[in-house]
């Protein structure tokens, strides 16, 4: 069975002024267990909307999302979400942020703290267990958010431009670390980005969306072994190809 199925999902928003905004049209996608999928498209094309629908935070106007064959009806710990703005709880220490999902599930204090520390180690922040989020840099905060999402052991991890706010160097380091974590945990990952480079570096398959209303333009398989070289020629031609797909999708070119 497919891990995740997005079945002909469409979404039309109604704004406060009564206007209708069609954000997504007939998006269909099947994801295997353990796959790393990047969803790529220009800003405003409906990437966040798609991810929110998969997470159960928004309902599709048409279509459905299935995880392990079961329809998603609302937010669930089976689908972990990592937001672009980290959305850590500033009044909780790092370790308590990571233990939050376990706390909600009623896991006892000692057990959840221990589990949280394991995930802290996984993201390389063991020394910062007792720090508050405001004492951390952007990259460190995003690692805490990753650890928090992983600690409840979701079936699928959804990430919405998680590294978009980081500087280029931190961003590259975070991409490498994410791949290491992914290889250790073998999670199914859906990673939204507007950066072609990022998608080519990370993904097993790249889902390229058109401009709004977002439809699937093409799903591009990346058959290159990891760890990938950011400067190799195969990568360069793939990048050129994907960029071409995005540019063709623009109405004014």
């Amino acid at each position: 069975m497919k891990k995740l199925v997005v079945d002909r999902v469409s979404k039309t928003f109604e704004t406060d002024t009564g206007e209708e905004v069609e954000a997504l049209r007939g998006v269909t996608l099947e994801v295997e267990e353990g796959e790393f999928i990047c969803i790529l498209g220009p800003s405003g094309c409906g990437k966040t909307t798609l991810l929110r629908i998969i997470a159960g935070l928004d309902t599709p106007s048409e279509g459905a999302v299935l995880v392990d064959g079961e329809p998603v009806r609302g937010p669930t710990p089976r689908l972990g979400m990592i937001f672009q703005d980290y959305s850590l709880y500033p009044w909780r220490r790092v370790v308590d942020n990571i233990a939050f999902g376990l706390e909600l599930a009623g896991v006892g204090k000692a057990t959840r703290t221990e589990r949280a520390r394991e995930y802290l180690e996984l993201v390389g922040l063991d020394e910062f267990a007792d720090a508050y989020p405001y004492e951390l840099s952007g990259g460190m905060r995003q690692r805490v958010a990753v650890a928090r999402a992983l600690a409840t052991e979701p079936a699928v991890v959804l990430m919405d431009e998680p590294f978009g706010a980081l500087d280029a160097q931190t961003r590259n380091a975070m991409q490498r670390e994410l791949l290491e974590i992914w290889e250790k945990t073998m999670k199914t990952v859906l990673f939204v980005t507007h950066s072609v480079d990022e998608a080519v570096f990370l993904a097993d398959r790249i889902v390229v969306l058109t401009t709004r209303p977002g439809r699937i333009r093409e799903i591009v398989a990346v058959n290159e072994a990891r760890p990938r070289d950011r400067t190799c020629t195969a990568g360069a031609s793939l990048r050129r190809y994907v960029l071409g797909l995005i540019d063709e999708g623009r109405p004014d070119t």
Partner: protein
Amino acid sequence: MRENVQKNRRFRGTPRGFHWAVMPILFLVVWEMAAIAINNQFILPRLGSVAVVLATPFSPILGSGSLVDNAIDSLQRVVVGFAVGAALAVPLGVAMGRWSTVDRLVDPLIQVFRPIPPLAWVPLALAWFKIGLASMVFIIALGSFFPVLLNTLDGVRSVKRTWIEAAMTLGATERQVLTKVILPGALPTIWTGMRVGFGIAWMCVVAAEMMPGTNSGLGYLILYAYNFSQVQVIIAGMIVIGLIGLGIDTGLRRFEERKFRWRELER
């Protein structure tokens, strides 16, 4: 920041560390000079006679209890009244902030009642509850209710949407969202509301104690002293009222600075 302020002060040539005392000392000097010039203790007593009252806080005044006795009475009333007001305002504010239906339903009422000063309720309070603790608690609760409510509402509305959504994707129930995200996220603002509310409650208690039939409390004491033309007692009572208000506000503010540091550092 603090350092900057001090540098500024030094630049202006005031001895460092004592600048806060300059105006109060000047004030006392002017007072004493005026008292000597007026030479009428029923209008403006000398500093010394007020100091005598303040220096003997445990001795009974005109047969109606000491400064301390009356202060304790006032404090008890303000604590009860404030607790009632806040206990109603916080849940209502959270409900209004979380569910827009509640907000739309209740808001018109709030808008109409809010501009009525607490003291305008005194006659009605007397008619309903007669003279005594109940009517005072009613006035004090009313006075603290609105600042606590409005700040709670503001705090709940300012809770980031992704904080709530992150909790939901981690499996939070509606109840858990309320207790583990919305309340702690809004708490700094709620606390500010409590501080403002307590200040107003303190003003209300003094005024409420001037209602006819009251026979204790700092408000009562200074009105009673007026009937006996004991102006030095009036002023001593006012000073105690001011100092207690200042002390409580400082305590609440200290707690706020210590516990809710994240609010400033987050942004």
